[in-house]
């Protein structure tokens, strides 16, 4: 009974079906434990958390240099910037926009630098549904390879104040 003290001699090894279930559950836990390191070696989607310390002002400066070096168009008043294949791209999150918009090429790999200038923001790439956290003071680097073309929308999915739902960005892939 769970409400009264256990009978003497209650300390004993599991038997029968209970023992079998514990064994099965433990095996399943080990399978799940192995999947994550395995995916780091064989899988293509990982979050390594590569990051560097950066002041918001310094990050904005790098972003401005990036914008000046490769603006190729304009989306709703926000410059569309194309980094060189294999190159660095900068994306600054602030209340309530993603700056700048990016133009990428399918099959090329980029180092995408994400940082916030004010609060926490959430980088949510739709309709792919890829999500990463963006913090002020941290240059979060994603090594990313677009494998599909079209217009992709960056939605902010970390609460950042009253205009949060209108914080939209764009990535165009050709």
């Amino acid at each position, binding site marked *: 009974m769970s409400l009264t003290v256990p009978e003497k001699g209650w300390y004993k090894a599991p038997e029968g079906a209970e023992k079998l279930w514990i064994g099965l559950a433990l095996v399943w836990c080990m399978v799940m434990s192995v999947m994550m390191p395995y995916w780091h070696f064989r899988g293509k989607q*990982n979050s390594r958390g590569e990051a560097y310390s950066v002041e918001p002002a310094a990050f904005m400066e790098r972003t401005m240099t990036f914008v000046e070096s490769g603006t190729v168009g304009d989306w709703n008043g926000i410059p569309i910037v194309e980094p060189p294949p294999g190159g660095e791209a900068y994306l600054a999150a602030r209340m309530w926009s993603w700056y700048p918009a990016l133009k990428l090429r399918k099959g090329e790999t980029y180092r995408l630098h994400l940082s916030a200038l004010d609060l926490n923001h959430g980088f949510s790439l739709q309709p792919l549904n890829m999500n990463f956290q963006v913090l002020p003071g941290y240059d979060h680097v994603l090594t990313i390879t677009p494998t599909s073309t079209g217009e992709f929308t960056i939605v902010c999915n970390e609460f950042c104040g009253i205009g949060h739902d209108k914080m939209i960005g764009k990535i165009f892939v050709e």
Partner: protein
Amino acid sequence: MATNSTSETRTCDTTGLPVCLTAQLFIKLSAVCAVVFLLLGGVAAILLALTRWQTIHLLPVDWFYRILTFHGLNMLIFWILFFEVAVLYFACTVPLKAKLFSRKVAWVGFIMMLVGAVMVDYIILKGKADVLMTSYLPLLAHPAFYLGIILVAVGTLIGVFNFFATLYVAKRDKTYEGSVPLVTFGATAAAIIAVVTLLHGAIVMIPTFTFAMGWTPEPDPMWYRTIWWGLGHQSQQVNVCAMVAIWYLVGYLATGAKPINETVCRGAFVLYILFINLASAHHLLVDPAVGATWKIWNTSYAMYLAVLASMIHGFTVPASVEMAMRYKGYTKGLFGWVTKLPWRNPAFSAAVLSVVIFGFIGGITGVTLGTQQINIIAHNTLRITGHFHATVVGGTSLAFMGLTYYVIPLIFQRDFIGKGWARIQPWLFGGGILMVSLGMSFAGSLGVPRRDYDIEPAGVYGASSHLFLGIMGVGAIIAVLALLIFVLLCVGTLLFGKKNAGRPIYDWGTAVALPGADESKVDAHWGMKGTIALTAVFLMCFAVYYFANWKALADVWPVQ
């Protein structure tokens, strides 16, 4: 009311156990506060659901985030902590035939909790703390918001101290022989985790409070996230422990179930204590600055040893109930015993629904979404909210509601009014929450963010997203109606319920042994055939969902 010579205890007319009157007072006070905060959180819930259901879109934007902050704190913190203090005070006194260590300490803890909670609610509704429950820095609320949370945390810690002191005195004075009962053991596990959790709360909230006062520099936002989740996620593991203890308790009350192997059940609680505190990593899986090794080790609770614990309870709880039924003579086939269970007992049906919703929906989604890489396609979407409404609401809250159907007759000594309503309430609530959880999960799979006022400006969410948000909205209406029925039944019973002092409580329905039942015909180690079949189905569902998510992940852009 029968009282002994010192007037400090009364003898329970149903169980014959001595009930410490001081403990009884604080169980009553805590339970009443818990239900009030549940009601506040429930009103907030319906406002939020009817806003996110885009067809209705009820609240203006500022009030949406304000009420969201309010909902999170009242439901996840206040309702649950007050109820847990009641559970702790029960578990350390009645089953041990012990008296509560200190009335004064209990008053101090209770008043601090209540003042803190009222302070937090007031400052949120004043519009001075639109920072959501997590209050991620650099978002900043009024200092009273943090101070209120600190008061609640410290008040709870004082209550936990009272619990441990009671255990110590009971052991010293030998009020019981041998080891503590399983329910007390589970409550102790919950209390140990609560201490670790609330210390994290103090570590993160005190510097944030002093920063808000302008006394100290701003803490690092990533440091804040890391430590805050030591409070935020672990506090949910306190709930898991308390909930599992209630599963065992209700299984015993309704069917006379006893653990098949006490060592296994207790060992599983020990696994919770040892490994569950790593779970804060679940929220940092796509964060910068914490590396892959740290993420993998922590998100798996070492090597899923806390998940193992839940899977063990998920077997032993139904197995013990099945064995109890088979011993009573319900031995037909795999599931012959299931139809003979006391389904009309609301505590029992609530516990069964709690096990099923927590295990099949909450558990499977939680482990999968908390897989390091899979989190990329889940983080901060409604999938997360869908997961924890299955664990905390469909699991914990429903189990707490179920227990209340015994707490009020046993501790407040009044038989329930509206028993017919009570019998359907768990089904309504469980069904509503299931719709909420599934609606959220599917919308989240389509990329719909959590904590978002309006999905239209993004321009990427189509008809199916709206459909799932609608399912969530309808589910929320059903669940909140069931919540209101629950609160009305509780309040109505306290005011108008028939006093039951001097006689046993009303029997909600318990399993009765068949004439000629023969215990020796049941195999003690392999007799739980129905449970074996059910857990096999569970494991298959788990594996299918888990690997389907790896497949979905493999379809997105390569990213390192």
